[in-house]
């Protein structure tokens, strides 16, 4: 499934990377520990987290993650948005909790084959 479709179905807010959403999603990883994400997330995945500070951008770049989805209605810090724009990282947000969002993604078939 394409990222743009998921955004529409799950009503996600697009914070950065609005021109970069025509990409196939390759599963996801949910964690708030950066070392865990660095060690275990795979490229092309969605990263579900409640972290909002600037260091999430470098993690997404290094792991070539498709997008960061910030949960619980939190907003990224201004410097996070700035850096994400510079580095071409897609940041989305959702009002749902990580648990509910992961459940909905899974229902859509995201990550079921991984």
């Amino acid at each position, binding site marked *: 499934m394409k990222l743009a479709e998921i955004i529409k179905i799950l009503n996600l807010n697009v914070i950065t990377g609005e021109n970069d959403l025509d990409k196939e999603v390759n599963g996801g990883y949910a964690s*708030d*520990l950066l*070392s865990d994400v*660095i*060690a275990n997330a795979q490229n092309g995945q969605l990263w579900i987290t409640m972290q909002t500070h600037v260091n999430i951008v470098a993690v997404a770049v*290094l792991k070539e993650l498709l997008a960061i989805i910030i949960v619980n209605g939190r907003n990224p810090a201004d410097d996070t948005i700035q850096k994400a724009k510079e580095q071409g990282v897609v940041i989305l947000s959702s009002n749902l909790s990580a648990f509910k969002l992961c459940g909905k993604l899974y229902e859509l078939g995201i990550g079921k084959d991984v």
Partner: protein
Amino acid sequence: MNEFFSQTYEIKGKDFQNAGKVSTGIKTLLKQLGIKPEIIRKVAIACYEAEMNIVMYAKTGTMKLDIDTKKIKITVLDQGPGIQDIDLAMKEGYSTATPEMREMGFGAGMGLPNIKKNSDEFKIESSIGEGTKLEITIFIN
């Protein structure tokens, strides 16, 4: 042919704004050199964790990248507090991160174990009050 690339990068302690910049730069460089993606992934993890350790704990540090036809060697030197008990620091889950660092998602106690896991050869030396040296080797073939 021996060494065909060598560069040293400076990393400042507590500079969370630029944290990850060196690792990201190294990753881009390795891509340009045509290094295989699975090797790049290992180097990126090791470099990121080493860079974050300097940012979180040290005053300042350097990361030296040496590439030859067989291997990528990363030498990390910091001026920091040093590690009291290296065996303990190598254990997954052990961390001396402050509550503020933990709130930011650091301090999982996975840094040094992640570096070791992604290295083909790994050496660590540390002196209390002086700093820590890591030697990370990842073979290309």
